[in-house]
């Protein structure tokens, strides 16, 4: 599935939001009165068997990985018997889904599905409003539905100060032709999902599919999946217990980046990058990428101190086979002269021999150049990043 960048990612797809696992989301849904299946979470086949025993067969096994398109990638299986469960569980727990290791399985009851609906709420960047999206044809092909049957899908932009009320939900659902009991049930779940979205400061909250049970509308609706992404910047004020963001970062270097307070994305190449802004970092990567391969993307944001850049050097140097480092920083909000001291202290303490090119302009630029030069860093004093990258080529040659 070709994946266009998400709404809130912006260039800052790099600054990932806090993603919740499906089972965490379902627990939250349950607390907000959204109907969810009976279920349990297992990190071993023994546990999975115990849970399935309590629920009763058949059960559905769902790999808990923080990525979309899991079903099509083989992460969801049905087990009719304990034997089958044992086999499926063992293979899932040792697998990777789209490059992510499976640590946990959710074991849940198999719903008797009549129909699959869709509801999602996200932040629309351009209008600056929460947008509620609903469809009568949910499931894995929802984006296809959006393209081919736009009449089966509709959306509503909320006033963020007003919120989202049941009557608005009903008006929206009427446009899809819903009526009677399904109209009010669907509206009820949608309003509850909006509460989750608002109270968890979500960037996205989604139920796909929201299942209509075969036992009829009397049996009602069931949220058999959850997607919740929480705004990092709001984590501290969410009044509910939240998992530790750092812990769920699989890559140890990226986890360390989070710990020291910078955005670090681990990449396959051999040129280390330190920039003082995401845009500048991306441009640096774009320019380098024409002829070389970045080892990482490291962006400090506006919090540069001597200590921080010392730690950034430490982090970038943890990558093996590094051939060079390029530092591209501006003194606007950042005291780059202090940052330069951190870099040079690291270089001296660790006797770094790697070629390092630094372009540093703005407030305190002359002082910064002096400090860098004292550490043996190749300083670029012209504005275009292309000049710094040319110097890099001279130093390391092309691949």
């Amino acid at each position, binding site marked *: 599935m070709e*994946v*266009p*960048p*998400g*709404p*809130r*990612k*912006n*260039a*800052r*797809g*790099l600054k990932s939001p806090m*993603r919740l696992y499906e089972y965490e989301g379902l627990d939250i849904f349950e607390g907000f009165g959204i109907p969810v299946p009976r279920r349990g979470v297992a990190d071993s086949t023994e546990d999975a068997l115990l849970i399935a025993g309590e629920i009763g067969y058949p059960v559905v096994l769902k790999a808990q990985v923080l*990525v*979309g398109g899991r079903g099509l990638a083989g992460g969801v299986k049905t087990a009719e018997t304990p034997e089958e469960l044992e086999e499926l569980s063992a293979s899932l727990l040792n697998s990777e889904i789209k490059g992510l290791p499976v640590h946990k399985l959710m074991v849940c009851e198999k719903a008797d599905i009549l129909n699959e609906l869709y509801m999602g*709420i*996200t*932040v*629309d*960047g*351009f209008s*600056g*409003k*929460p947008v509620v*999206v609903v469809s009568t044809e949910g499931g894995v092909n929802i*984006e296809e539905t959006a*393209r081919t049957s736009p009449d089966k899908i509709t*959306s509503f932009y909320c006033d*963020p*100060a007003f919120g989202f009320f049941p009557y608005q939900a009903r008006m929206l659902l009427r446009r899809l032709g819903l009526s009677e009991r399904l109209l009010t049930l669907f509206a009820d779940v949608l309003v509850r999902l909006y509460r989750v979205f608002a109270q968890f400061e979500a*960037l*996205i909250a*989604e139920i796909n599919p929201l299942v209509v049970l075969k036992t009829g509308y009397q049996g009602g609706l069931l949220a058999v999946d959850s*997607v919740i*992404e929480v*705004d990092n*910047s*709001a984590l501290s*004020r969410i009044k509910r217990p939240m998992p530790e963001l750092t812990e769920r970062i699989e890559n140890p270097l990226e986890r360390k980046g989070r710990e020291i307070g910078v955005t670090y994305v681990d990449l396959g190449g051999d040129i280390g990058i330190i920039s003082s*802004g*995401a*845009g*500048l970092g*991306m*441009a640096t*990567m*774009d320019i380098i*990428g024409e002829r070389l391969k*970045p080892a990482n993307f490291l962006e400090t944001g*506006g919090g540069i101190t001597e200590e921080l850049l010392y730690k950034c050097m430490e982090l970038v140097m943890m990558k093996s086979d590094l051939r060079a480092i390029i530092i591209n920083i*501006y003194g*606007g*909000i950042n005291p780059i002269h202090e940052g330069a001291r951190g870099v040079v202290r690291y270089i001296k303490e660790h006797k770094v021999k790697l070629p390092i090119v630094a372009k540093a*302009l*703005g*407030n305190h630029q002359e002082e910064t150049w002096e400090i860098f030069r004292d550490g043996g860093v190749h300083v670029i004093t012209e*504005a*275009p*990043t*292309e000049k710094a990258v040319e110097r890099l080529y001279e130093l390391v040659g092309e691949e």
Partner: protein
Amino acid sequence: MSILIDDNTRVIVQGITGKIGSVQTRWMVEYDTKVVGGVTPGKGGSTVEGVPVFDSVEEAVEQTGANASVFFVPAAFVLDAFYETVDAGIKLIVVVPEHIPVHDVMKIRAYALEKGVFALGPTTPGILVPGKGKMGIMPGSLFSPGRVGIISRSGTLSYEFAGILSEKNIGQSAVVGMGADPVVLSNLPDILKLFEDDGETDAVIIVGEVGGMQEEKAAEFIANGMTKPVASYIAGRFSPQGKRMGHAGAIIRGSAGTVKGKCEALGTAGATILKSPIEVLDWTADKDIH
């Protein structure tokens, strides 16, 4: 008349007593910006860099006639400070801080629109009008007066482009940081319109990024009758994209958001697409902009 900042702009600094607020106040004053006051609740009566500090924006406006404000307020207090500033009658607000919760940004954006306030940010370097003044954190040394407008989603890239131009003696009429957050208080077309209407701007550079719909919407604006030449650089061609969860965004936005899509949209609308920042110099030479 330059955009946003002119001779009548009287600036207050909110969060002026903080570490960043006080340092940046010094830079703004040194850049000859009319900084008439500062606000930090509970610190009224003191001064920072010779600027009087007040407990509230209302008082600052009463005492100084301020009509613009730049924020160095901690992210958690921005919502409150923004409402306060709008209610006090200020009509231009620059929100520099990053990490403001998106749900707060949605609320203050709606409030600003309702009350007719022009605001920039969050996560913006602010605005700098060479020779007139600056509100925000842009390092003055990189800019020079002239007739090219710059709008950038990225703070650092706005410095980069201004720096490249200034080195070649091509000055800027104004440089505006749109803000790098998923939701910003003024969108790209809003700012583009200011430059289109500005008698002191001959051409505009849009510095965009992968993600979102700002550049696509800017392309619509250009196609709908923008008269001045536009060049655009979109960062993120080789950037890794995060793994995606959820469908709502893709449904709403369709295929918008990729560097390729943005370049195509802007190119079709008549903008010159820059593959690398330094190409901006070819554009200015080509269009005889100076």
